[in-house]
């Protein structure tokens, strides 16, 4: 399984990411997920989320999750980008792409990745009030 992990303060460039996709002839399904900063946290309006990571541990924990995906599904490729620092409302903080032969495993693996990330990857967010 190919993996590509980017943890960076740069804005997520969906177009560039899509252009760099390499599909094998046996791959029939691509699932992408974008997690976008919403305009409120709880009841409060916000302008942005400020993301912080224990970056070395985050990379390691993402690696463990990718290994678990590879053991469980016939996935060809996982690419994941998590943005750090200030991410304004309406911009993505997370981009995940899973490529697989069929759609069921692509959807399952993508959701598993995100669920696991939300349990295990040391990244935190601080709302910046409006």
């Amino acid at each position: 399984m190919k993996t590509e992990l980017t943890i960076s303060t740069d804005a997520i460039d969906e177009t560039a990411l899509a252009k760099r996709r390499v599909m094998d002839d046996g791959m029939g399904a691509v699932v992408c997920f974008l997690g976008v900063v919403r305009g409120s946290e709880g009841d409060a309006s916000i302008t942005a989320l400020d993301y912080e990571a224990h970056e070395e541990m985050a990379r390691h924990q993402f690696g463990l999750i990718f290994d678990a995906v590879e053991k469980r599904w016939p996935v060809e490729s996982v690419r994941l980008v998590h943005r750090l620092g200030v991410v304004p409302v309406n911009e993505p903080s997370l981009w995940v792409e899973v490529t697989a032969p069929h759609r069921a495993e692509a959807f399952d693996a993508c959701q598993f990745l995100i669920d696991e990330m939300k349990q295990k990857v040391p990244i935190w967010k601080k709302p910046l009030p409006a």
Partner: protein
Amino acid sequence: MLINVTFWSYFRDHAGCSETVVELETGATLAKLHEIVCEQFPKLADARNSTLKAVGLEYESDDFVLSDGDEVSFFPPVQGG
């Protein structure tokens, strides 16, 4: 033995610092370290039950036996995504 402790996210604010060094007896567990840290930084005691604990880059449970020089991280529930 000496253990390096790093605080992340709002645990840093609660502790008032991002790192500390704790002296422990040989054979002490992660639970013991956590107890000492909670005494030293009382605001962290309030989040005792929701504290995540890692040694190096791995999550470890309370009965993990620490070694001299271990790098321990304490932090609140993660919120990636």
